[in-house]
């Protein structure tokens, strides 16, 4: 792998940038791998990367039915934060945030992680009580988080309407300074390039059509490019996890919904941070390119269509104009939808299954992007050792039968 550097950039400038190396190979599937990852999005590629880099499992294939990072990795609003309420979730997302901080250096790929902070607004007394509770819980877990007043909010984000004239006046917010945004495509590409350099086979246009299972053990997968053997298979397929589970005869407590986002025409820099509001139900940030990146809730019904409904767009933009009246005449450029696999307790599933060697990493619902490196890291550790990593263990699928749910509906709040 050619390492990227400033000198390299200068060197390639002399060659008119025509001699850059391909970022990853396009290999022919082998007959056998030690581990197969189904799903070549951010989480799947991160899993493969950490398997090869930290856990010494290099004979790995990532099987992807489309192209790398073409699903929710390319469709989210790129928010990274870790201010979750419960200890288990806090640990998981904070582990991820720690990895984000060194990710560009680790991957030798600029993921443009920008810690510009996240505001979660409160508009009612109950909002403020919830925010205080969550901030206290965060601080006990070592997550930087504080409660800020409307005046402090105005200093952080001058464009916000904090006046009492608003329909839902802002009473305060929680503020996580170390949170931020990252460049979503670069995350997938960086992990893909890193994994490929360590010998992982990235098999694109390879669709899993079934699992080879005998005596309760997984022996491999059937694909449209032939059968591939492996005694460990990790499924990281987001919205299509349920479809995979069906092939293996397993039921997951997931429902797949469209979640949509919009970007506006590019504007001069106006937003300093990421602003989210559970109450008026919307969130917004500004990309380095200048577009406002906007999102809100999922469509209420099941759907695999990768598009959202018009009523949801309307509600989303109402929320944005409520928070930032000055954006009322900004024109929207593009709108799209991704399929999120929502879990009843708004927490993911990282789990073994009844079939030996078959693991699922799914249920990230509306907030999976922020967890990309952390999810990949703990899932890789679990696949390598055959035992769930301590951070991943509470997210077992068993919790839906034991009742040990991790209810993060408050912190997950507005979809993100």
């Amino acid at each position: 792998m050619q390492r990227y550097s400033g000198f390299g950039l200068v060197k390639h400038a002399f060659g008119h940038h025509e001699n850059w190396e391909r970022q990853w190979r396009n290999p022919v599937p082998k007959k056998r791998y030690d581990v197969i990852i189904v799903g070549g999005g951010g989480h799947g590629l991160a899993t493969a990367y950490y398997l090869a880099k930290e856990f010494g499992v290099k004979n790995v294939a990532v099987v992807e039915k489309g192209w790398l990072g073409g699903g929710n990795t390319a469709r989210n609003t790129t928010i990274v934060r870790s201010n979750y309420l419960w200890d288990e979730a806090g640990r998981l997302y904070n582990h991820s945030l720690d990895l984000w901080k060194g990710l560009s250096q680790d991957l030798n790929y600029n993921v443009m992680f920008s810690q510009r902070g996240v505001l979660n607004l409160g508009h009612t007394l109950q909002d403020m009580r919830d925010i205080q509770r969550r901030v206290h819980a965060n601080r006990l877990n070592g997550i930087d988080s504080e409660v800020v007043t409307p005046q402090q909010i105005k200093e952080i984000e001058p464009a916000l309407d904090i006046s009492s004239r608003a329909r839902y006046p802002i009473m305060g917010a929680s503020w996580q300074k170390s949170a931020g945004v990252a460049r979503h495509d670069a995350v997938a590409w960086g992990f893909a390039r890193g994994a490929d350099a360590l010998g992982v086979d990235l098999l694109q246009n390879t669709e899993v059509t079934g699992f080879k299972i005998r005596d309760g053990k997984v022996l491999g997968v059937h694909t449209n490019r032939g059968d591939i053997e492996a005694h460990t298979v990790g499924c990281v397929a987001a919205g299509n996890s349920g479809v995979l589970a069906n092939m293996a005869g397993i039921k997951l407590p997931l429902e797949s919904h469209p979640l949509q986002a919009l970007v506006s025409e590019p504007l001069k820099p106006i937003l300093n941070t990421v602003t989210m509001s559970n109450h008026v139900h919307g969130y917004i940030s500004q990309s380095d390119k200048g577009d406002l990146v906007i999102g809100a809730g999922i469509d209420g019904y099941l759907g695999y269509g990768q598009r959202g409904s018009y009523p949801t767009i309307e509600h989303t933009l109402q929320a944005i104009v409520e928070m930032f009246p000055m954006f009322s005449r900004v024109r929207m450029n593009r709108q799209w939808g991704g399929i999120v696999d929502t879990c009843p307790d708004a927490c993911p599933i990282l789990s073994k299954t009844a079939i030996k060697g078959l693991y699922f990493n799914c249920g990230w619902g509306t907030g999976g992007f922020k967890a990309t490196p952390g999810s990949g890291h703990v899932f890789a550790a679990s696949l390598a050792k055959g035992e769930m990593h301590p951070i991943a263990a509470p997210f077992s699928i068993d919790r839906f039968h034991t009742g040990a749910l991790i209810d993060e509906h408050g912190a997950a709040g507005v979809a993100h």
Partner: protein
Amino acid sequence: MFYIFCPYCKEHREEEEFHARGQAHLMRPADPDNTTDEEWGDYLFFRNNPRGIHHEMWVHSVGCRKFFNITRNTVTYEILETYPMGEQPTITADIPSVRHEQGVQAADGGWQTVGARPESKALNEETSS
């Protein structure tokens, strides 16, 4: 935008008048005190999540406020039928060809939908789901 036929109001109305309320035909365990954790968890949390034909419950929340069921394709978003509570769907994933035989109108680009239950008597006979 869905254009949904309410089987009680007997009219097509816009999606915003309705709310989706999840999988249809869920049965509460007959004897809740004697269900195992497994059965109770399955009832509370585990849902069908098909890529294709799905039966779901909707409520006409700003109309007649009654619940009814929709058979819908979750990929094309085509609404295949709507029917009142207590009735069984005539179109299921097992017999998707039924709708072709009986001439249910095809969706236009997946957005335009046909909600009315076809008039044909044969269609209204119960089929196993």
